[in-house]
């Protein structure tokens, strides 16, 4: 079961990040078949989901909460531009505050409390020792801009997409644990523009269909999808801005340390319609588990081998796995003797 998050671990330098037995059990393993199929795989995020699973609530608060919020603070101190909100997104930011505070206080009443007296809101986050009163909708009554305020209290990256002329535009967000994408770079771009670098999917017409689906999303009907990549070391901030600090990590993988160095990095992406602004929010929640931890489960180990072995070349390149992919497949083959 969920326990109050107390540990403070690192996602850089000495990398003290670890997963409990409970965290590994509930890890959102993203491969339903031996073959990796390239699909949009969007499904309703029906709430509440299965108890104790990562799908139970709108926002999953887990044992890494304090650590991830601390890491976010470190990134923002180094590069404040990881959080931005164009002026026309103010109402959408408040939509997100309302949605998050309502959900967190209802789902985790021991940790978050919200009381409202008209527009006067009183918010308590006991995990981070936050106790604020403010006027809903009035950004001047918050201690910092609304996007940063809520972003510092929710795990996972957040982005708000403005919907105009049947398209979506990345106009606000807080992105400190990206799988190699940059908010500053994508800011203001349309849906097909910011997906420009993704291989294969454009030809399959995936983005056209996804956009049509997303622009028609209704209020109170969030949807989710899983995305995945691999990361060397448990590094949350694999942003293009920081590439000089992590690009070289790939060269550190050896046949002897694959199990501890290579992490499966899964994004639980939850997309939700913002009622007041008609924007869409996306929460990109990152879960990481080492190959050693995952391969303790024989089913996962066997499947990982089969998926990695047959991964199409363009995806190996796009996900940045080229350098150590053969080594990983070789290491995983020990768990798949019946192939």
């Amino acid at each position, binding site marked *: 079961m969920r326990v109050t998050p107390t540990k403070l671990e690192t996602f850089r330098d000495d990398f003290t990040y670890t997963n409990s037995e409970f965290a590994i059990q509930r890890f959102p393993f993203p491969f339903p078949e031996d073959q990796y199929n390239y*699909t949009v795989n969007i499904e309703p995020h029906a709430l509440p989901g299965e108890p104790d699973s990562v799908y139970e609530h709108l926002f999953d608060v887990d044992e890494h909460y304090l650590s991830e919020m601390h890491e976010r603070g470190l990134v923002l101190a180094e590069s404040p531009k990881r959080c931005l909100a164009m002026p026309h997104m103010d*109402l959408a930011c408040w939509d997100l505050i309302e949605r998050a505070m309502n959900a967190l206080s209802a789902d985790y009443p021991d940790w978050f409390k919200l009381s409202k007296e008209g527009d006067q809101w009183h918010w308590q986050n006991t995990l981070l020792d936050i106790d604020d009163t403010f006027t809903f909708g009035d950004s001047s009554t918050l201690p910092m801009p609304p996007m940063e305020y809520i972003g510092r209290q929710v795990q996972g990256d957040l982005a708000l997409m403005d919907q105009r002329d049947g398209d979506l535009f990345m106009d606000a967000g807080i992105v400190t644990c990206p799988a190699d994408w940059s908010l500053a770079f994508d800011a203001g771009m349309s849906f097909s523009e910011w997906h420009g670098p993704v291989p294969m999917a454009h030809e399959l017409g995936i983005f056209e269909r996804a956009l049509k689906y997303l622009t028609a999303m209704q*209020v109170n009907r969030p949807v989710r999808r899983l995305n995945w990549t691999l990361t060397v070391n448990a590094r949350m901030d694999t942003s293009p801005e920081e590439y000089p600090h992590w690009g070289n990590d790939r060269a550190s993988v050896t046949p002897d340390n694959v199990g501890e160095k290579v992490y499966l990095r899964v994004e639980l992406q939850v997309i939700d319609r913002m009622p007041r602004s008609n924007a869409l929010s996306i929460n990109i929640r990152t879960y990481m588990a080492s190959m050693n931890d995952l391969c303790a489960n024989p089913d996962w180990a066997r499947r990982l081998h089969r998926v990695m072995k047959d991964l199409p070349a363009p995806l190996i390149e796009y996900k940045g796995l080229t350098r150590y992919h053969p080594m990983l497949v070789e290491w995983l083959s020990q768990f798949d003797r019946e192939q």
Partner: protein
Amino acid sequence: MTANTPSHHLMVRVSDMKLVAPTIKEFTLVAVDGALSPFSPGSHVVVTMSGTDANGKAKKWKNAYSLLSDPSNTEAYKIAVRLQEVSRGGSEFMHSQVQIGDVLEITPPANLFAPLWRAKKHLLIAGGVGITPFMSYLPEMQRQGANFELHYCYRGKQTGAYADQLQQQLGDACVRYDADAGNRCDLTALLKQQPRGTHIYICGPELLIEGVRQNAAQIGYPASLIHFEEFAAPQPGEPFSVTLKRSGQTIDIGAEESLLEALEAADLEIPNMCRGGVCGQCQTKVLEGDVEHRDNYLGAAEKADCIMPCVSRAKSKTLVLDL
């Protein structure tokens, strides 16, 4: 990705009803249980009306209506319905059948006509009952201190809902043109005096929308700054029939009903939002037959093998659909 998330519905009770112009009735809707969600300015809901047609047969109408209440008000939604001279039944049902206390089914608010908050100035042009989406723009624009102007064209003997109230609230930011009193809006002059980067929003009859667009094109006003909402209610036509490829089922479409309504009556779930040929959700593949396209969505290439069943009909006697 599979089909769209199944749409859900809200049950609301009519808590008040009043005439706000000679042909326009306003309805106040409150949640039967639970609360209503705030919504974004320009949102609409689709109201399902269950009644009987002229032959006494059970019939369902589904019409989209803009929400006209303050979008932050979660106590009640308001809509206004103009009695159409040639009603397919929906507006007449709302005007003559619905009583205070009745329960109606509506979709949650959806938005195809949201203001662009990046605009330096917003010029709102309403015609008749087309004032309704702007009624939800105005409170939010005032809250945000946005720069806006409302130009409201109507015929005082039929429409002109809320005109006095708006004049009072907005003062100079509201200009009224009652055609029945001989006042008309000089669109060319109005467009010419707009500061650079003004976004224009039009809601009203096709004639008004076309008038603004043509004037704008003549003076070189960028089309990207012009937004309009026209719920082209499906117009009647000749009866026809469709065959569904996958099930082999054949469905007859009467003169007065739309293809979408006929498909829904046959228990098919077709994604839809605007029911007026704009949003693109109900796009359906045509395998055989000629289509009479009446939508504003499909591009020339798509028209070769697609139909928007919410408004479009068959030119041939039958169509075969990929359903």
